[in-house]
């Protein structure tokens, strides 16, 4: 039986993303947010086969919306994608769930009857933004004293989760290696190909053989850069921890990456009218807060809310995309919620593929819908922990 959506339901009809490239060294290390964002929005619109002028709003999530991804980057992206000036743009920020938040927001506006066609997604350029953050008055006095966890680095919060819930380095490295192995197999099987829109850009590099000479060159990026075939637990165990005496290391944490992705979200009615082919239906979204100093466990609180509202249980979900900010928090959430390992991050996650904060939510939604279809499952959940102590979770039905 083929499933359908009706009326004011929101459907995702296309997905397009750049490959995720290594920050500072990768292909997108000189690429402006509007360039990469414009590229994926254009591709998503083309894949949906819709008239760009029909888009109500371009909603882009971004974890660090400033500098090269600032100035309401979504509006710049709309223009850079070649959309008419009549198409609006809004940038949303909920750190690492920004991309998912953007898709939820588009869906909710459709459900509210506010519009029929939206582009929603996210982007991040750590290469061009993270080193240049405006730190002026970044800390508030009362919070620093009473809720210092709100200003902890994500690394610190991951160490806290490891210590508080007694999760060893060995278990984390094993998870990290498994993520690489799954992603590597997924890449070889072409599981990412459909969602990627190759991009040609100019990048900078250093030629160490020529005494550290700087160079720039044009490259076409068509594959995620972080996936390493043949990664073993033994190799990961040798990596030095990021903090002296800590357990979080490069092999069991998400990779810093650059990238952008976008989906076209439409009302089911408009999709049917225009002949677009929906990939899935938006079925709900939930957020929940937790202690800032252990932000990684956020999904543990968001997921039950989401499932309860939809009247579903953990076992009803055929596929989970639980963002791998750190192996430690994925392990904790998985075991606490009883998520079966064979339904979790089947093609690996951010540890292998990379994690451009505000973009990841979009990647996970697109991937969950395509993978869900491939695996013949009905419900997929996309969820992640969020800096500041939150979890976000979205439920989709695969069509």
């Amino acid at each position: 039986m083929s499933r359908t959506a009706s009326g004011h339901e929101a459907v995702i009809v296309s997905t397009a993303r750049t490959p995720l490239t290594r920050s500072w060294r990768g292909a997108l290390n000189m690429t402006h947010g509007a360039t990469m964002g414009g590229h994926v929005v254009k591709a998503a619109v083309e894949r949906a086969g819709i008239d760009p002028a029909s888009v109500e709003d371009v909603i882009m999530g971004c974890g660090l919306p400033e500098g090269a991804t600032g100035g309401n980057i979504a509006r710049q992206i709309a223009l850079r994608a070649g959309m008419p000036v009549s198409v609006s743009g809004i940038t949303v920020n909920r750190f690492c769930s920004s991309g998912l938040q953007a898709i939820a927001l588009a869906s909710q506006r459709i459900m509210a009857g506010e519009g029929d066609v939206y582009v929603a997604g996210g982007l991040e350029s750590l290469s061009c933004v993270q080193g240049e953050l405006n730190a002026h008055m970044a800390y508030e006095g009362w919070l620093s004293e009473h809720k210092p966890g709100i200003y902890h680095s994500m690394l610190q919060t991951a160490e806290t989760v490891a210590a508080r819930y007694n999760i060893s380095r060995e278990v984390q490295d094993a998870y990290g290696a498994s993520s690489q192995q799954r992603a590597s197999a997924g890449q070889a099987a072409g599981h990412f190909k459909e969602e990627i829109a190759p991009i040609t850009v100019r990048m900078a590099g250093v030629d160490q053989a020529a005494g550290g000479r700087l160079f720039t060159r044009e490259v076409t990026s068509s594959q995620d850069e972080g996936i390493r075939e043949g990664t073993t637990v033994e190799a990961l165990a040798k990596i030095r921890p990021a903090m002296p005496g800590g357990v979080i290391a490069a092999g069991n944490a998400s990779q810093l990456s650059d990238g952008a992705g976008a989906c076209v979200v439409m009302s089911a009615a408009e999709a049917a009218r225009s002949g677009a082919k929906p990939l899935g239906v938006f079925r709900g979204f939930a957020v929940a807060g937790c202690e800032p100093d252990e932000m990684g466990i956020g999904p543990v609180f968001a997921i039950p809310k989401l499932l309860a509202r939809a009247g579903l249980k953990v076992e009803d979900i055929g596929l989970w995309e639980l963002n791998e900010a750190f192996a430690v928090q994925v392990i904790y959430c998985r075991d606490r919620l009883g998520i079966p390992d064979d339904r979790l991050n089947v093609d690996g996650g951010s540890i292998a593929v990379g994690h451009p904060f505000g973009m990841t939510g979009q990647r996970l939604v697109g991937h969950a819908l395509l993978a869900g279809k491939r695996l013949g499952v009905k419900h997929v959940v996309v969820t992640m922990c969020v800096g500041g102590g939150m979890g976000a979770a979205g439920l989709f039905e695969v069509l």
Partner: protein
Amino acid sequence: MAMVDQSSRGRISVIAFQAPPVNSLGYALRVEMLAALQRAAADPDVEGIVLVGSNGTFSAGADIREFGTPEMIRGPSLWTLNSLLDDLHKPVVAAIEGMALGGGLELAMSCHHRVALATARIGLPEVKLGLLPGAGGTQRLPRLIGVEGALNVMLSGEPLPVALFAKSPLFDKVVETDLVDAAVAVAEASAAALRGGKPLPRARDRKVKEPDLQALCQFARNTAKTAFKEYPAPLSIIDAVEYGATRSIDAGFAEEGRLFKQLMDGPVSASLRHVFFAERAAGRVTGLPEGVKPRSVASVAVIGAGTMGTGIAINFLNAGIAVRLLEVGQDALDKGVARVRQTYEGQVKKGKLDAAKLEARMALLKPTLTYADLGDVDLVIEAVFEDMGVKEKVFRQLDAVAKPGAILATNTSTLDVDQIAGFTSRPSDVIGLHFFSPANVMKLLEVVRGAKTAPDVLATAMALAKKIRKSAVVSGVCDGFIGNRMINQYSAQAMQLVNEGASVEKIDAAIEKFGFAMGPFRMGDLAGNDIGFHIRKRQYAEGKLKSKAVVADRICELGRFGQKTGAGWYDYKPGDRTAYPSPVVAAAIEEARAASGVTPRRISDAEIVDRLVYALVNEGARILDEKIAQRASDIDLVYLTGYGFPVWRGGPMQYADSQTLYEVARRMEGFAALPGADTEFWTPAPLLARLAAASGSFNGGGA
């Protein structure tokens, strides 16, 4: 002789620089160049100008002797010349042969046209002295060759072949021969174009073409931050380029000037300029008669085929000098030869040497077991066990076989060179050549001048050092010479810090953060703690040490000699050079503290660094006062090239100068007042006290 020669080629005035050897743009040349340019500008018969070098080079740039002196900016400055060129209404062509470096290239870029010989090289080497090109280079070069290329030229500081830029607006023409003819032709053509209403091309009127300017500059900055860490000049270069490229060239000039002054006034450039002069000064040996001629050295013998002996031999083989390698046993000799071959094979593997050269070098190495084979060599260096009895045997045998006039050198690191010379009938031919391990890698060579060492023997050693590319520093005879005598105080102080409460890890970390390549304990584990143990035992016997190094001795008694025994101040795992904190060592330290009744206290990183560095400085002051070292900068060079002292801090004496000696002395007095302190140790040496009182400095004098 005039510094410029002005002649006419038709209606073109050719101004040739005549300031040998490299036409440095010192004040005198600038004055004459300005006058020549003004004459040509005013002469109605002149329609164009060619600037050309003489002696095969255009100009190597600013006269470094003027750096930091008022002469540097005394008008006419390089700025005056550049702005005069900008405003000149006749075409000016720079004809470049040999080198156009630094200010020389900046001058050329202010000309309307540049023509170069294909063999010429250009570069902006200012970064090597911790500076940026301060006469418009950061602004004109990106306008001529683009930002990426300009950054590479300025950040590397290397001279580069003009062919790399032949297609850029940097050069109108690159020719194989007849440079001046070509330059004159370009000047004539430009003058004709000018008459035809075409404005003269100026670098300053060009736009910087870089669509990703901010991204590229930030990438360069991120790269520079890791590649150059403590050095501010690369970042300033990038900043100056970006500033002028986003605004105007004049705004860029102003920013370049501001950053140049900031770098020039900063400690890192001061250190690098100090090192530049220190390297040149070290070659000048005081007290040598005028015109002393070095002896010729065509063959060398090395006695002892251990790590040190073979390392020394490799230096000479690399320079194409035949080496006899002598050992007492066949087995040790074979091992030595194998070690030399292994070193070369390693280089071949890394692509640093080709196989033919390996064989050619090995062919120069002649192993032998008999002293009689050393009868015809020009220089013998012994690298045998550090024991006066052993040295005596070696030198008596050498005295018997060496030909008259052969130089007899000892590689001893601490023993009395004069006593060793006394074992021979020819003490004037004996000298110390103290190499540092690994001898084929370490730059430093302490040339130890004995009481009777002949001037020409000393001159030979200095010339030879240059040939084998060592940084040679002359030292008088004393226990440990310059380097080890000072390091003994430093090590003793490190031990004292341990006794008082600091862990070996903390001490190493603090001094490594200061910039040392390796802290005292990691260094000891690498070099072998038994070496110091052996020396201490001799010094205890000679009554030269006031107190025993209890912990250090204990570590050695436990057989913890360092990496080679798998344990030292730290623990090591097989095949892993990582130093892991050792509970055994911690327990030995606890025990020693308890035995001496010391209550450990927390010691700050700043105190650790000051006490270690000032221990060096105070002994350095004595060494200088006793004339063991010829000059303070020689001491600095020893520490920079042999002991891993951070180059950007200029060496221990320069560092002390930068802190002001008054402050150094005051800090020492503070250490003397600490509970349980060795007040004698912290009494400022007489020279230090004198200089501190007179606001003088080790490197600048003043007392």
